[in-house]
């Protein structure tokens, strides 16, 4: 818990710094380039359940709320595929199961509405990712954390397994922290 509070403090400090300095802006852009790459790479280490609902031909990474990536995410997904599906970026005002999102990135701007966002996709096999504090504590699956200038992440296995997502052990190994599943898997 103290880790998280420290992280929050740091995040707060970072925000202040962003507001104050253009140099910090550049640093922030670089950080989001890394996060964009992580979003794509997560897709390679998560196994979606086979055909629980009809899917389109694309593998959409959806961003809910104010887009912090800018062009970085579009640059990363360009030309990449997951399981034969072309990866595309969707920017949404609000999330819903009707969308063919595979990964849902919840922007920090949605911090107050995160419960609604997660509820909107609950039961659907969508990998929820965010860099807002306490994201995994509030039912999110992967929370990006910046630690010592490096982007790390925590994984919350329970919500992922609830919707049939299987996170591969390699990813768990490099996670900063893993919240365990509720019990033995069926």
């Amino acid at each position: 818990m103290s880790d998280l509070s420290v992280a929050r403090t740091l995040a707060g400090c970072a925000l202040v710094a962003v507001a104050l300095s253009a140099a910090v802006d550049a640093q922030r852009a670089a950080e989001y380039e890394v996060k964009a790459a992580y979003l794509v790479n997560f897709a390679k280490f998560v196994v979606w359940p086979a055909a629980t609902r009809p899917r389109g031909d694309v593998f959409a990474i959806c961003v809910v709320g104010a887009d912090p990536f800018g062009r970085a995410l579009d640059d990363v997904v360009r030309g990449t595929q997951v399981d034969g599906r072309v990866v595309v970026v969707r920017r949404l005002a609000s999330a819903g199961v009707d969308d063919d999102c595979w990964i849902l990135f919840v922007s920090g701007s949605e911090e107050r509405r995160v419960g609604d966002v997660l509820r909107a996709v609950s039961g659907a096999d969508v990998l929820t990712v965010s860099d807002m504090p306490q994201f995994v504590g509030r039912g999110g699956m992967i929370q990006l954390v910046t630690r010592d200038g490096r982007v790390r992440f925590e994984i919350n296995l329970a919500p992922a397994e609830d919707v049939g997502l299987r996170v591969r052990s390699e990813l768990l190994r490099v996670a900063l922290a893993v919240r365990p599943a509720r019990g033995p898997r069926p």
Partner: protein
Amino acid sequence: MRMEPRPVSISQRLTRMNMLVSGASLLLAGVAFAANDVMSFRDTIVKTLAVQAEMVASNSITAVVFDDAQAATDTLKGLAAAPNVVSATVYAAGAQPFARYERDAGTTGLPPLAIPEGQMEASAFAPDAVRLARRIVFEGRPVGMDAIQSDLSALYARLRRHLLLTAAIMLVAMIVAWLVSRLVRRQMTQSLQQVAALTRRVSESNDYSLRAHAGRAATEELTTLVDAFNDMLSRIQERDRELLASHGNLEERVATRTAELNAINNELESFSYSVSHDLRAPLRHVTGFATLLERHAGSALDAQGRRYLRTITDAAQRMGTLIDDLLAFSRMGRTALSKRPVDLGRLVEEAQAEVTDRINGRPVDWNVGPLPIVQGDPALLRPALVNLLSNAIKYSSTREVSRVEIGVSSSTDDEVVVFVRDNGVGFDMAYASKLFGVFQRLHRTDEFAGTGIGLANVRRIVQRHGGRTWAEAKVDAGATFYFSLPSTGGFRDGANDEDGSQSHPTG
């Protein structure tokens, strides 16, 4: 001081050869096996290293992709199970190490290998290390690289073990080879040594009844050798016996024959002597009464009668000379030789004087070289020289001046060769072999008077002195007669000053 090398016995040589061959083959085999094993072990090291690098690479993918150095370090720690791995490093995109493992803290290690474009890994051997690098690939894209460095202590330990093992095997094999060859050589050389010792005994004692015995353990060749040796001994023994027997026979036979021959020869010589001697008495009567008849009735006879009478006298005289010569020849074979140093120069002078007396002042151009002192009987050598000189003058009597040359043609330690050369009528070399026979004449009696005994006598005299006679000539171009005598190696003192090359025509 140089020592004569002692001859090496067969057994020693066999042992040496045995040890050398077994040692060399073992060494070669050992080295070959070691080399082969080390080479394949090198491959094994590289393969093991490649497996380890691949494991590190696949286990480091997420660490590299999600920038988790700790996870990569944890992965590398797994290499602690491989004691040969000195260090391992994971590189993310750049050349800066992302995570590192060191077996012994503080190891710097070698710089990472560059992996050629389009290949997954690269490896390189250094004298004490082998390095291998492998790409970390994620989704078909290289995202980093891991490099492992291993020491070669296992390789060297293996090599050492091989060499030690080879050396130990060689030592044991040498000892076994030495023991075996000692055993074999004792069995083998026993027979050989026996044969050798027997040979020595046979050659020392001339006892050919001795026999060699092949030992119980003799090889086929040795048995053959011993049999052959015994066979040879039997044959020599047989030969020896025959030789001894025939030797006795031979001596007996030679003695008998010699006695017979001597008896016959004596008989023959006494016969010819008595015949010659007895022929002289009636001949004296013929000559004497022919002379008396001439004196008594010479005036009563006509010219033809006197010529008949003279022919009788001449023929009787010639026969007398012939008988005298025959008697001399016969005597020559019987009288004992009394050898002493004879000055050949002095003898030639005496012969010259004797011959000059008989030729009635015919001019002779003498040319006498220095002559040696020889070992001989002057009583025999003088008539031989007289004969040769008178022959020279006789057969050159058709020339205006007789030229006679006497000298030494060659002189060795053993013999001295004297020649008598004339400028006479010579003879055909085809008859040279008949020259020295009794009654062998190359010219008719009415051409040159003579009995045909002279040269036979010369040869007999020279042969009794242990020398040889021969002649060289050309028809109408003079003749040269040679005789050799055993040399004494001396010349008369001052021979050159007194008689040397002096030329004084007589008459």
